[in-house]
């Protein structure tokens, strides 16, 4: 199992050489473990963890829970220090006058950044954008984990369809799917849901609302395997779908296909958003492609379920081979309420392939 990716480590060392950094710190907290896990693939259980990469290639770590010592030590092969309060460990892990950069600096508590600066006598640089750019293009081993996560997302959606029924609450439905995904190896799952008709304007955590015949039940499932997320978005109708639900679904499927047909190396991500929005415009629903009704037309995937770049018409980024992007034209339409549809796509040499195997249809329960 990938624990300390030598390919990534080399890329980070090259980055340090280019920028003139002596030490590169990878700071993760419970929300943003990805900033740590992109170097050390351990799902730490303490509130924070920090890995230090020296320009000579040594890796050491500071953890804030004693249970993290052994797995992190096994992964890095270097020294691992346990401190109950991270600020204590920070002072000892950087040397005076060192040029330090921090991946995840923005998320770091201000007192931690100050501790680094007091120890070095210098202002720490942010490495977050540079590291994110490296992370966008996945290694072959990372792609294997994302494929496994995509497969689990498919199985999770099968379970969703299997158990959804009228009279069940949203939170009971989510419990069934979460339990299934965890039982089949997911570390985590980012999942939102909503149910109802044209009054539904967004997905959110599940409520105690009971599913009713005629409801659109929308969800995005995002299981995580060995740190890596894949996502699937589908819509299910309780009972027979109405003409309007079918009409709406056809627009979403056409928009997602437009994105998938376009996505390839060299394409500007703004165009991947534009071709999706153009389908809605063609059908007279262009007003429903803006922030009042939707968020993004997709996003990058990896160690974080909502990586940049976002797929938006005003975001410019040239797509590269081996990026993994979900394209989901999810939005509100007056036909059906909020509807979702999306697959995890891997950018190949000449186009892209879907890692999602779930049928492309409006599901029915």
């Amino acid at each position, binding site marked *: 199992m990938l624990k300390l990716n030598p390919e990534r480590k080399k890329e980070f060392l090259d980055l340090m050489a280019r920028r003139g950094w002596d030490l590169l710190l990878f700071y993760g907290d419970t929300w943003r473990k990805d900033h740590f896990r992109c170097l050390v693939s351990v799902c730490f259980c303490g509130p924070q963890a920090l890995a230090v990469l020296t320009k000579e290639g040594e890796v050491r770590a500071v953890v804030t829970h004693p249970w993290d010592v052994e*797995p992190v030590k096994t992964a890095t092969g270097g020294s691992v220090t346990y401190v109950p309060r991270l600020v204590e460990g920070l002072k000892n892990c950087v040397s005076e006058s060192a040029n330090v950069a921090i991946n995840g*600096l923005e998320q770091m508590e201000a007192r931690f950044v100050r501790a680094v600066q007091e120890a070095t006598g210098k202002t720490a640089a942010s490495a977050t954008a540079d590291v994110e750019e490296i992370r966008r293009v996945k290694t072959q081993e990372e792609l294997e984990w994302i494929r496994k996560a995509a497969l689990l997302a498919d199985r999770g959606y099968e379970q969703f369809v299997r158990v959804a029924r009228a009279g069940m609450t949203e*939170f009971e439905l989510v419990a*069934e799917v979460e339990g299934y995904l965890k039982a089949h190896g997911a570390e985590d799952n980012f999942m939102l849901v909503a149910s109802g008709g044209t009054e539904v304007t967004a997905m959110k*955590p*599940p*409520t105690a609302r009971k599913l009713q015949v005629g409801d659109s039940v929308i969800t995005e499932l995002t299981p995580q395997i060995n740190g890596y997320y894949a996502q699937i978005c589908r819509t299910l109708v309780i009972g027979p779908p109405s003409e309007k639900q079918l009409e709406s679904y056809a627009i979403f499927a056409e928009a997602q296909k437009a994105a998938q047909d376009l996505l390839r190396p060299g394409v500007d991500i703004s165009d991947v958003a534009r071709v999706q929005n153009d389908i809605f415009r063609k059908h007279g629903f262009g007003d429903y492609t803006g922030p009042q009704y939707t968020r993004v037309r997709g996003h990058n995937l990896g160690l974080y379920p909502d990586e940049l770049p976002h797929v938006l018409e005003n975001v410019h980024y040239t797509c590269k081979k081996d990026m993994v992007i979900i394209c989901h034209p999810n939005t509100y339409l007056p036909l059906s309420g909020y509807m979702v549809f999306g697959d995890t796509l891997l950018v190949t040499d000449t186009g892209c392939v879907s890692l999602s195997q779930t049928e492309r249809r409006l599901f029915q329960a």
Partner: protein
Amino acid sequence: MKRGLVTWDKGELPPEELASRLAVVHNVVRTKGLDALVLYSDVWRCNDARYLSNYMPYWNRAFVVVPRDEKPILLCSLSPRVYPWIKTVTVHETIVASPSPPASLFKLGAERGWKRLGICDLDGLPADLHAELTSGNTELVDISRAEVRHAPSKVEVQMHARAARMAREVLEKEISNAKAQTDHELTGQLELQLRRAGAEDVVDRHSLVLGQTDVYRRHKGKEQDWRRQRELNS
């Protein structure tokens, strides 16, 4: 993460309880000579805001702002499309869409002539928000968490007791089947039962780091060793 049932059961958490917590914060604002007090919230560090207004995000950052003698205002990075839902599970009547909570806070402060703000655990803010706030012209005062959140009330203790009861009941039911299960299967079963019982979140150390029961025991023993060592050191 918190993606189970997020709700506001007013029988369990009466509005009067939240009102009494707000009164404590209002008192801090007055006695410290502040114009308002600000609490940070994100998907992980949500407890301060949750304590005050029952706001618990499933994603993103927010500030809960308590102006002197007014109801709390939510400066929220989530989409306005979910504000109707937020209003059903919190005390918030005013929610301001805030892609940048500090920018919204400064705008609000400028409109109201605020000059002195209290920030709960100022140095605990994420560094980018801290930098943005401290670069402004408003005087910032660090307010310790202990000043805002006092000893657990009877209501809180009852909620702890309910969570403990849920955990005990589910464990008692599931542990007898655990021998025949892999660690993933046991974790999945616990997750299923607890979320079905209405848990909004489940923290399962067993699934996060460890793989097997013997490893669990080994680590458990190690934690006790650490504690013993720390006692010796102190």
